[in-house]
């Protein structure tokens, strides 16, 4: 066991924990707003189908939120256990950002979650709506703070180094650092797309199982159309984010493109097998001038190459392939969501074959989101905080076998929970057609008559 590298193990463990964690906020951030949308549609139309959709997805939300909370607790411990050097060096920056996330976001979400989930019959309609909005707002706020910190680690500004320790100089600059607006927008859209495909996938699954309820069609349309709207915006924002990265972290872009020499007229590599030993690509399939056109908007634009950053650039293969997986799924999302939208427009709902594709893509958002995170986080290596702190210098002195043993335990737990989560989601979707107790007395549904004043008369 002694030849295990503690830095690598600590990275794998932290990576595994944060990968598992991010799956759930990615869903809960956007799903909370979709729930509000269902509530509003129901309040406006009084149509029971929106309430049925709300009932299914509020359960999905509760389950997802719980997984996000408990996996998030792990994170608060592992910052210190796995990366003590991180807090020693940049704790003055990271500390307040994390503290504000806990104070303003975590408590807000958790504090109003009880009322949002179980308070429907216990509080006035306006309070239930307010609680739901506050939970949704809390999840978004949480994303804001943690992405501010992550972006600062990518593009650190607004601090000065005194005795080898970072001290804050300008908090505005630190929070709104150069990559932050792009990363936040990209991530929030990723959350929206993940939820859109989740809802579309679960609804398509219900349709294929013969569930004819209007609620299923309403949710399916919501998911597909939301995806169709968001994906072009996401492709545009992703491109802008890439240009921002080119400006601030050119070595990351060089690894994404597997471009070894800084030169003009760089082709866009569709597939290759990058070889860091030979510092060249094998089996390359490329579109001439492609990378120069995308990154420099001119066929002869100069694109930075990895050889300018020898010893100071990320490992090429994981960044290169993760980027292709993300972009590939993005393009697939574009094709599927537009085609499915077209079918909904022409014939009311997608054909069974398209529904099958949607079921297969239920968790496509997760794969794309994780791939994107691997691009940006592995792409930051060998730095933990770009130019400030190397990952290897932040690692803890915990013995490698201890990290390996706990890593194995975490991985086993996560694999099991992931399987349980996915199967329970499909189970809930299957079960949704069995009618529960429907609310007969409209007065029991608070927001119908109090939530939105304009519709009080209608309801």
């Amino acid at each position: 066991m002694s030849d295990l590298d503690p830095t690598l193990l600590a990275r794998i463990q932290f990576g595994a924990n944060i990968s598992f964690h991010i799956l759930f906020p990615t869903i809960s951030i956007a799903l909370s707003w979709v729930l509000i949308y269902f509530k509003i549609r129901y309040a406006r139309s009084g149509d029971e189908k929106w309430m049925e959709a709300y009932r299914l997805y509020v359960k999905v939300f509760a389950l997802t939120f719980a997984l996000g909370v408990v996996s998030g607790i792990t994170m608060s411990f592992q910052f210190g256990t796995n990366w003590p050097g991180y807090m020693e060096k940049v704790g003055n920056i990271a500390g307040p950002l994390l503290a504000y996330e806990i104070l303003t976001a975590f408590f807000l979400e958790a504090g109003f979650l009880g009322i949002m989930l179980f308070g429907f019959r216990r509080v006035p309609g306006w309070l239930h709506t307010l609680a739901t909005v506050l939970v949704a707002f809390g999840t978004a706020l949480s994303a804001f703070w943690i992405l501010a910190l992550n972006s600062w680690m990518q593009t650190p500004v607004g601090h000065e180094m005194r005795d080898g320790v970072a001290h804050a100089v300008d908090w505005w600059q630190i929070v709104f650092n150069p990559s932050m607006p792009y990363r936040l927008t990209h991530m929030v859209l990723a959350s929206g797309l993940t939820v859109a495909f989740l809802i579309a996938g679960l609804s398509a699954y219900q349709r294929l199982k013969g569930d004819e309820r209007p609620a299923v069609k309403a949710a399916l349309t919501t998911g597909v159309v939301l995806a169709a709207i968001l994906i072009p915006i996401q492709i545009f924002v992703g491109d802008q984010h890439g240009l921002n990265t080119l400006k601030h972290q050119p070595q990351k872009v060089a690894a994404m493109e597997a471009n070894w020499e800084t030169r003009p007229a760089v082709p866009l590599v569709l597939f290759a097998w990058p070889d860091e030993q030979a510092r060249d690509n094998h089996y390359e399939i490329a579109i001439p001038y492609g990378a120069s056109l995308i990154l420099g908007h001119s066929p002869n634009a100069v694109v930075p190459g990895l050889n300018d950053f020898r010893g100071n650039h990320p490992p090429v293969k994981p960044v290169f392939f993760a980027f292709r997986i993300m972009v590939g799924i993005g393009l697939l999302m574009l094709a599927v969501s537009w085609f499915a939208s077209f079918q909904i427009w022409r014939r009311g709902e997608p054909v069974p074959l398209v529904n099958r594709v949607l079921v297969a893509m239920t968790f496509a958002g997760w794969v794309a989101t994780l791939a994107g995170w691997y691009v940006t986080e592995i792409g930051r290596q060998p730095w933990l905080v770009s130019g400030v702190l190397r990952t290897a210098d932040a690692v803890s002195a915990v013995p490698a076998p201890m990290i390996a043993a706990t890593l194995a335990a975490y991985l086993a737990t996560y694999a099991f929970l992931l399987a349980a989560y996915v199967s329970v989601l499909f189970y809930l979707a299957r079960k949704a057609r069995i009618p529960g107790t429907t609310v007969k007395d409209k007065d029991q549904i608070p927001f119908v008559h109090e939530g939105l004043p304009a519709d009080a008369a209608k309801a």
Partner: protein
Amino acid sequence: MDQAVWLPVAFAVLMGVSILLYVILDGYDLGVGILLPRATPEEKDRMIASIGPFWDANETWLVMAVGLLLVGFPTAHGVILSTLYGPVAFLLIALIVRGVAFEFRAKAGAPFKPWWDRAFFAGSLVAALSQGYMLGLYINGFAGGLTAHAFAVLTALCLAAAYAFIGACWLVMKTEKDLHVKAVRWARLTLGAVVLGMAAVSIATPLASQRIFAKWFSFPEIIALAPIPLMSGAIIVGVWMMLQRMPRADHSLDFVPFVGAVLLNVLGFTGLAYSFYPYVVPDRLTIWQAASAPESLMIIFAGACFVLPVIIAYSVLAYWVFRGKATELRYD
């Protein structure tokens, strides 16, 4: 006064309050988990319903406490959590399993429900035990050796019993009929273990550290400290007598044992906090040695002063909304 002097103290207080709130709040819901196997299936649903709207927010106090340790005293966070790496991993996995079992038991199919109930129980128990084990090691100043670990095993068992006690008191307050009667019995049984635990910690703490011994048994401190054991004793006797007279036809006093349990927690915690102050790692690191730069602490402190009252306000709102005896949880 100098920021570098009072800010670490303010942070220590904030962290202490967070830990105390966590121990009380998650204490009762972990306790309910520990008691779960003793109930019938219908009672299990009701027990879980009694903590359903609260457990998420309760666990946030743990994130808050660890977060404050991380951002306020980063060196101590490194020392403490690296030393406790093993038990921390147990705690985290237990909390994960427990938290999700709570959701899965109601959402997975009926055949799986007993398994998720078992997971909920096991997660609650292991979480309580690992917290108690860590407390034991902490009290001994992370000294290795058989005695320290044997003591940690004892504190682990006692903390689990204490959580079961406060959980039982919570159920006395929140439930009716058969379950209420059962909860009264559970509270009586676990109260004995609580007394044993408080005694064990009270004996071991001064023995583990010369400094704490001097702090406890010198004049006039001993007079100032005397109310802690005296009040604890009075509360224990009072709660015991109350439990003997339960169940009562009139449920208006069902909250009393829970309040007693909360007060016991507050007193026990105050005693520990007094003993270890100003050390954040016993006899090794003071809060001033471990603190972050004052300007960063200040910006968090300012935010906390503004936000904490709001958090307390909406926490009170949540408890108000779900006041009274627990009813079935419904999403609609």
